[in-house]
């Protein structure tokens, strides 16, 4: 679909943003109805045993909000950086024919730097998991 204002955005005949919102509304209604029916038909007999977190039959001790290794945080931040680079690569990809070889060399350098970054974190052990990870 073209950006709004062109080609009647509110027309139900066009496969545009209106149809997308109608579909979204349908999906919401279905999920809501499912949850409503289940809360209507379902049993409601709470007991302390049911409310307790399942730990294979052992009574849970301590807080459940564990702290977990820093590696997960590193993955999230690497993902963020690569995602931003991905946004540039996608904006190039969609126009790659019009941009020609000049654009190709620009993206070549861009991806080269990206791969250098990947190689760096790889060599430094940023992608290692488990006890054998070098620190």
């Amino acid at each position, binding site marked *: *679909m*073209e950006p709004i204002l062109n080609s009647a955005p509110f027309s*139900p*005949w066009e*496969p*545009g*943003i209106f*149809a*997308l919102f*109608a*579909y*979204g509304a*349908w*999906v*919401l209604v*279905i*999920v809501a109805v499912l*949850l409503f*029916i*289940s*809360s209507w*038909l*379902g*049993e409601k*007999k709470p007991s*302390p045993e049911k*409310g*307790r*977190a*399942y*730990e294979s039959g052992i009574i*849970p001790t301590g807080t*459940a*909000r*564990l702290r*977990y290794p820093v590696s*997960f945080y590193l*993955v*999230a931040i690497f*993902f963020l950086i*690569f995602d931003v680079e*991905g946004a540039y*690569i*996608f904006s190039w*990809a*969609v126009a*790659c*024919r019009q941009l020609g*070889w000049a654009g*190709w060399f620009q*993206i*070549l350098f861009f*991806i080269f730097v*990206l*791969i250098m970054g*990947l190689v760096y974190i*790889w060599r430094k052990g940023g*992608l290692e*998991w*488990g006890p054998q990870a070098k620190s």
Partner: protein
Amino acid sequence: MLTYAAGLLMLTVKLALVLGVLLFVAAYLVWVERKFLARLQVRYGPNRAGIFGLLQPIADSLKMLTKEDTVPEDADRIVFLLAPAVVALTALLMFAVVPFGGTVTVWGREIPMVISDINVGLLYIFALSSLGVYGIALGGWASNSKFALLGGIRGAAQLISYELALGLSLVPVVMLAGSFSLVDIVGAQAVKGPFIYYQPLAFIIFAIAAAAESMRIPFDLPEAENELGAGFHMEYSGMRFGLFFIGEYVHVQVLGALIAVFFLGGWHGPFLPGPVWLLIKILLVSLFMIWMRGTLPRLRYDQLMAIGWKVLIPLALVNIVVTGAFVLI
């Protein structure tokens, strides 16, 4: 005004049909999976409810609807209650940009066989799949259970890692088609032939990343039974568990549809009408994923991350540069 009302009616019918088929196939995919998996393991699988156990999905959904919906004590109630809906919603909404046929003419108007052909369709799918991560991470966090939290964190880290590979593997497809619109991508393949011939490497990367995104064996670490119980949906019961289930199977279908749209020519095929071809391709991809589940052992977490970051992402990046040169020659 009358044409507007007629259009609204047609739209409603179309949307109801699409949703009906999506949910019906999701329910029966569970049956197919259980039956196929059972045969792979020399068992019978469900065979009590109806002939060949064909009524099993109906029995299952009735059971889920009538079960108690428990909320663990100390759970973050609202987040806990909404997280499964996020998973189901994002999976269902993703299908909105998948074209499932050409056009049909009703009352002299052409009705396109796609819900919404926005010109950033491919990015719309990535946006939704990155929002789907919240369902997993928050569902695990809100349960106030150690297993669930571990599963949620594992799942979120796995999903974001493979989302990168998934995204980068599709850049060559965008370059070949010159558009983000899924309708244009299918259209380009009708002219040039399926992109799997041009981009076998991208196809393999996408297929592996898609399998990881669906969080099934061999990539099911977020819900690894023998390590985490049930992982992020440990504390869920009743229909909320059912929503995670619906989300998973609709996601499998959508990924099958995406593989079909990006690499296998979409709804184009000889003799049969478009929607049927798309459904056949979706089912073939789903069967392949079930087969993989029945054959492969689960990966270790370090292996999982190594495949994503050290194999798929560098390969996808090199593939982009090489394809760029080929497109320009």
